[in-house]
């Protein structure tokens, strides 16, 4: 028994799930569910389909290069069983998993960081510019004489006097 990866979305395929397709050139395509299978049949490129791991890795959304990946390799030659090695392996898997998980989370957090700074800058600007919606410039001036609020010139419509109205007639 082996856990395979879906060719399309790169999710794990547990035993008893999914479909395997063998092409005439003997290449095996494994799919975790009919969604991936149908996308494949439509000849969609997983590198262009947003929700797949292939896309995410390609566009740098998920972690690609890491030393934890090297520890997990598909070995073609079977090793002679050694209980101690097996014990160590089982313990190690847990640790490696945790480290990998943490690192992936870090990667994503790194991605999000610039956005926070940007947001802060924009908020600051907004505060400066639109303060007049809630506080009149005069009020600000009176409260904090240090701040000079830019004067906004508004053109007032000319008031039509009675004389003008009569003139129109």
């Amino acid at each position, binding site marked *: 028994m082996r856990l395979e990866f879906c060719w399309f979305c790169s999710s794990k395929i547990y035993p008893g799930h999914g479909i395997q397709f063998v092409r005439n050139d003997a290449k095996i395509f494994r799919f975790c569910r009919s969604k991936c299978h149908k996308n494949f049949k439509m000849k969609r490129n997983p590198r262009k389909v947003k929700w797949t791991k292939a896309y995410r890795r390609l566009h740098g959304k998920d972690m690609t290069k890491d030393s934890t990946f090297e520890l997990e390799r598909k070995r073609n030659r079977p090793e002679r069983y*050694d209980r101690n090695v097996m014990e160590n*392996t089982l313990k190690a898997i847990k640790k490696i998993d945790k480290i990998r998980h943490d690192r992936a989370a870090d990667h994503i957090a790194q991605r999000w*960081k610039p956005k926070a*700074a940007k947001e802060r800058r924009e908020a600051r600007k907004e505060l400066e510019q639109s303060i007049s919606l809630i506080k009149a410039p*005069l009020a600000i001036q*009176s409260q904090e004489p240090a701040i000079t609020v830019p004067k906004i010139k508004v053109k007032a419509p000319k008031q039509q006097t009675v004389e003008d109205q009569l003139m129109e007639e």
Partner: protein
Amino acid sequence: MAQYDFKKITVVPTGNDLIDIVLSRTQRQTPTVIHKGNAISRVRQFYMRKVKFTETNFTDKLSKTIEDFPRVEDIHPFYGDLLHVLYNKDHYKLALGQLNTARNLIKRIREDYVKLLKYGDSLYRCKSLKRAALGRMCTVTKRIGPSLAYLEHVRQHMARLPSINTGAPTILICGCPNVGKSSFLNKITRADVEVQPYAFTTKSLFVGHTDYKYLRYQVIDTPGLLDRPLEDRNIIEMCSVTALVNLHAAILFFLDLSGSCGYSISQQAALFHSIKMMFRNNPVLIVCNKTDLQTLEGLSGEDLKLVMEMKSAALKTIPVSTITDEGVMAVKNAACQRLLDQRSERKMKSKKMPTVLNRFHVAMPKPRDQKERPVCIPQAVLEARAEEAAHEERKTEKDIENENGGAGVYSASLRKHYILADDDWKLDILPEFLDGHNVYDFIDPDILQRVEELEREESAVEEDGGDFEIEDEDFTAEAEKDLQEIRKRKKLLIQKHRIKKSTAESRPTVPRKFDKDRKFTTERMGRQLSSLGIDPSRAIERARSRSVSRKKLRLRSRSMSRSRSVLSQRPLGEVVPGEGFKDSAQKMKAVTMARNATKKRNKDARRGEADRVIPTLRPKHLFSGKRSIGKTDRR
């Protein structure tokens, strides 16, 4: 010596069927259209063709039948006699002869009518001639109807006759009814003949096959015989008599010692002696059946004497019990052996034998001296053999399997023979997955080392404190609150604008100065200004001083002699010089007309004369649907 295959005879149609077949064939396979305008030669040809075609068909079918049926003289006498017994040779020959005559008659008819047709002068005459010809042929066929039916009957029965190879070595079983012939046949061969307690269960010949010394023997079971003269025998008995007489076979005469068949030993002995003639050169074995009921030794003196008499005429006597299988094989072997010997004898006596014998010569080498030369086996081989013999006692996996419940129940433990560093590990359970990973992908003797390295890396990174980013000062609580207010205000503005936009078309745009909803009051302004943080009192004062009503008052107080304000109220019907009405009545009429027009427009919710907006161009309820009665070509 061929095996006759009566199954290959074609089906014989009845008289009417034959007529139907041939006539419909003629109709389909010959041209059907002819006109009296055609040339006479063509007409003649047309009808001649039909007559000839019909005749050929009849003769073909009749010839086929005549040829398919076997001639009684030409086949093996056994079959000839059998046919005679079953179907009466004479009747059979007569039927076939009738078919032959019919065939000739039809031929004759065709010749006559073709000759006549050659000189037919009109279409009608030719047609009548053809009709007559066909009619006569059909009558002939109708007359042989009963013969055809009889032949069909015979054919069906013949197809079911047992296929007896007259040349193969045969064993014939005969005797009184109910002595155990059919049960014996069932024992030796794979035949499944009915065995019942009443006499004449077997009504015809049955064939089975058995093997002996790589040769196939036919075993024929016959119906029981009764002791009566030949003329009185019925068909069933005649079958067995035919077989007895004509076939060269080893004859097993069955004798019932106990008399449970219903016939005493004396009766059976009488039968034997009367049939004796038919045996001729065939080897005869007397089979004393039902020894489980009555043994040969236990017979009374008279019976024993009779049996002895029979024995003298026969080769051997073998006691048998078909129920307990005692002696069955002995009988078979004896009979087969006897037949085999006969065959060999005959072969030896034949003319060909010397030529065959001359071809080979068995050479026996003469001994050179008197020295003994025994077999020589090297010592190593002997030792190996001895070892092997000793080894034979080890317990195999198969034995273990059988002990523990057999193939489906026990599955061998393949782990027993694993070669591991420590034998305790042989029975370990090996997990294949852990937390969604394949365990085999991680197996590495120094994996712990590498994991330690990894962990060291991680901790090093953590100590660094991650990335050092330039932290902007966060907003104060006040600033946060302000920001939220601003955002709320903006959202409200957007919302209001959206509402205004969406209702713009259906809402009249009343300029602000008319203030229909009375929204723009000084109180409101005051509230808004104070929320912005400004003292509103001065603004309110100013607004109030400049309001229109005040203005009006001021103006009025200033100069009354000036021209009247536009906004002063006049009575409705009063004629104003610039308007263009000639008198008050006309103006009133105009006013009323305007009012009436606006009334209709108001009812239509139109803003004015120019408002031609149709909110829904094609309302569904006017443009679709069926009418319960009437048509929908106009809507």
